[in-house]
């Protein structure tokens, strides 16, 4: 049962940050799609809830050819999924959103809330890291921007401290020959990923690999970058054998935990398969770009 709490409803970002700084036992709610579950289970029982749903300044999607994409923290998953510019410039984000839980959840849940919740099984984390995104957060005493792959610290823990709100996600403008793909493995398509893999590939004009990223979902305490696999690919002419080898590395580097949905062995195996497939898919996109 959800405990009783005081409800705070700031009208502006300034007011929100001031309130958050003022109350110690306070949790931030926006879409509530992560928080309400743990509150219902009694795992979190804050005295204050700070509802930033009405802070309109944080709800936006902006794109600029040079600057790239900027998404405000309270932008809903559904808004990202339905954005024309994102569909055109970052189709992997739309594909990811289309499989993120149900439409009802996407209508309420926000990108900032998802990242702040820092569930290693979350979908946006690995994809955004593969897209080389950074995240801006801040409190009443200042703002900070960090690469997203440095943002996650541990299970459900980020670099943010009490009083910090997620403000914005920034994705750089895609390079000319770039591809990015994401897939999660689950029993039902819209379910949480048992494991997941995101991969991005940037090619040089001569077709060799300029840069690559491999990020695993639910394969450890945080979205897991497999730099060893990335290093294997950089500078090379990519082919199926390399993708398979990168998959093998991902499978070995992963730190998945067994539960009723899959054994550790199966998780490692599938992570290898998904890494191989996503790299190939990203590579083919980059070739066509």
């Amino acid at each position, binding site marked *: *049962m959800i405990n009783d709490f005081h409800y705070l409803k700031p009208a502006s970002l300034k007011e929100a940050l001031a309130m958050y700084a003022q109350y110690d036992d306070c949790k931030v709610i926006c879409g509530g799609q992560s928080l309400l*579950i743990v509150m219902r289970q009694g795992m979190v029982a804050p005295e204050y809830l700070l509802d930033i749903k009405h802070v309109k300044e944080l709800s936006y999607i902006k794109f600029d050819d040079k600057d790239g994409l900027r998404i405000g923290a309270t932008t809903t998953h559904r808004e990202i999924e339905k954005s024309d510019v994102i569909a055109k410039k970052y189709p992997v984000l739309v594909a990811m959103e289309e499989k993120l839980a*149900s439409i009802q959840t996407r209508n309420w849940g926000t990108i900032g809330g998802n990242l702040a919740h820092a569930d290693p099984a979350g979908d946006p984390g690995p994809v955004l890291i593969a897209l080389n995104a950074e995240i801006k957060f801040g409190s009443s005493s200042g703002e900070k921007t960090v690469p997203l792959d440095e943002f996650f610290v541990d299970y459900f823990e980020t670099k943010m401290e009490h009083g910090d709100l997620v403000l914005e996600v920034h994705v750089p403008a895609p390079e000319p020959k770039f591809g990015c793909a994401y897939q999660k*493995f689950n*029993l*039902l*398509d*819209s*379910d*949480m990923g048992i494991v997941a893999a995101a991969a991005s590939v940037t090619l040089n004009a001569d077709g060799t690999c300029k840069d690559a990223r491999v990020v695993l979902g639910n394969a450890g305490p945080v979205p897991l970058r497999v730099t060893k696999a990335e290093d294997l690919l950089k500078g090379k002419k990519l082919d199926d054998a390399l993708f398979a080898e990168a998959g093998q590395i991902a499978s070995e580097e992963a730190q998945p935990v067994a539960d*009723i*949905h*899959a*054994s550790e062995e*199966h998780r490692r*195996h*599938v992570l290898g*398969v*998904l890494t191989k497939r996503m790299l190939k898919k990203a590579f083919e996109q980059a070739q066509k770009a």
Partner: protein
Amino acid sequence: MSHAKYSVINTHVHNIDGVAKVTGRATYTFDVKLPGMLYGKILRSPHPHAKIINIDTTRAMELPGVKIVVTGKDTLGIKQGIWRRYEELCDEQVLPLEKVRYIGEPVAAVAAVTEEIAEAALDLIDVEWEVLPAVYEPLEAIKKEAPTIHEGVERNVNVTRHIEWGDVDEAFEDADYIREDWFKCSGQAHMCMETRAAVSSFTPEGKLTVWASTQSAYYTQGLLAGVLGLREGDVRVLAPYVGGGFGGKFELDAAMFCSAVMSMKLFKPVKVVFSREEDFIASKRRTPMFYYVRTGIKKDGTFCARESRMFSNGGAYTGMGATALYLSGFFHSFPYKWRGYRYDGYRVYTNTLPSTSMRGFGAPQAMFCSEQQIDWICADLGLDPFEVRRKNGHTEGYEVPGQAFIASCGLEQCINEIEKWVKSKGKLPANRGIGISSCGFMSGGIFNWFDSPYSFSSAVVTINVDGTVELHVGCQDIGQGSNTTMAIIAAETLGVKVEDIRVHSGDTAHCPADLGAWGSRQTLMAGNAVKMACEDAKKQLLEFAYAEMGINIVYDLDIKDRWVHIVARPERGLPYGDLVKKALRAKDGQRIMGRGYYTPHRKGMISPAYSYMMQAVDAEVDPETGKIKIHEVMTAHDCGQPINQLGLVGQLEGAASMALGYAYLEDMPFEDGKMMNPNLVDYKVIKAPEMPEAGIIEIDTYEPEGPYGAKEAGEGLTNPTAAALGNAIYNAMGIQMKELPITPERVLKALREKKEAQK
């Protein structure tokens, strides 16, 4: 017999309670709120097996707002069960006095002014336990050295069932080929939208009224009266709307019992609603089964004999498990003719959640084993699976020796239609296959373990002066649409429109007794009672019509679409409304009333009639991850004359979703007796976006025992699916799946084993 001339039956009729439901006006037990009502919560056992040494409720009683705390000592301590004809199978005290036998078993109950206070009070009940050794799997529990779960029950064997006909050993000797396999079938949660819930109100007059989420108001009435020491007539059970049952809601549950016990002590209404977690860990479940199957067949595909042994995980108590044990063994023979058939079922107690009936009643497990093994035998011998099924399938007029008579059977047409459908798909891409599975199911059971002195189904129909009709039935609408089906049968029989009928159900004080919604019984049994009641009323009306019209007695009269007429001269007649007004006057102002009932006689051991079907599942396997994708489900289905067209489609789709879930998603893993996924994140059910197309081909047959030729349609549709998926995977990948659910890991393991074997 022509049956295409109906004006209401098998037409497009919307659920008569659909508008009330979608506008939120339908009052489920969950919605009931009475003045002064208290809220109850149940303390549950954290141990799989433990003696209750002492329960101290002092601290809980001191919490402000708490009105009562009860334990087993505050009850009559009666051991109850739905098999109440058999004392040894009445083994469950809802609040046990001496010991608990599974994690989640009720230990005490609290009623308080709010749900929050009641919940908080649970933490203040101090229970002293003596933890006992526990056992969780039937093949362990049946061993000599296993702990005793029920005193005096040797080797924890709760019930056994032997079925045999023909000379089995001789028939095996005739076989050219014999195959044997072991299978493991999992449990499954009923997953009703409405969790178990009850509101009980006991008044100083000594009368108890209970709103309950039940599949049978009559069973609930009888069971409650039994454990509370009341007369049945002093207990009124109301169940106007029920949010699903699926076989899990016709026994006494802790919501009903605890709310009633506390209300009787306080003379105040008490409401108990299970949380989703409670519904998972402490209701009941589909019975997990281990099956050994041995089948003998001739080279030409003629079936000779089958012998099976089955060990089921009964969990802590009997429940409906004894029936599931019989029906699993019986339907394991379906839908084929065996010269010799032998089944030995053992239901074994374990320290886990009790098992019971669930949609299909033991048949989905039996078919998973049987229908896969038949395909493997066909492959072993190079036979055509369609042809073999046609060759050995039931036909009209067949008698299952000593068990059942088959009066109508469309199996062969079902096989022909599915064969056509499969062939029309042509060659499939790699890693994709179509599997088939055929089966049949009962249209209500001829079982009376409840020892009801009443007819199995009854109906009373009353015609008001304006021609509107009050139909009182005991059959229970649990969302499957039985009220609509009964309204259709009544409207057809009386010759009026569906909107002329008001159906009264789910109230033991005003509706006749009826065994309720289980075993696919209502369309045939309650349908027959409704038809008989309406024919009775109609006959009375037509007597007045004869007098009024003054026609030659050789003419037949009938009513159709509210027009009373001569059958041979349909234009000659009078409006139904006018006739009713006159008839009522002639009856000294008494309303026209008809009564009907149905109890099966001379219909064998199991059921008066059987549905038949063949299903095909089109599925694809990812060979690298083991993930299964279901493309389509197609079912050819003989339910006799369909009555409620939309209801039938709803049943088919609902059954497909439930049975596919059973086949590849839903599982109830336990660790040391604790269910590991009692929530809807970790317990996987198919959601709307993932639901594949599920089509139906209706096969036209006429069942002489059914109302207008109807048979069951809904429960049996859960039987074929797991096997059909297994066969699809076999056809796609060449692997044999012997354990449910068919998970990606099991698929990959089977693929690895196949690779090893090929080396």
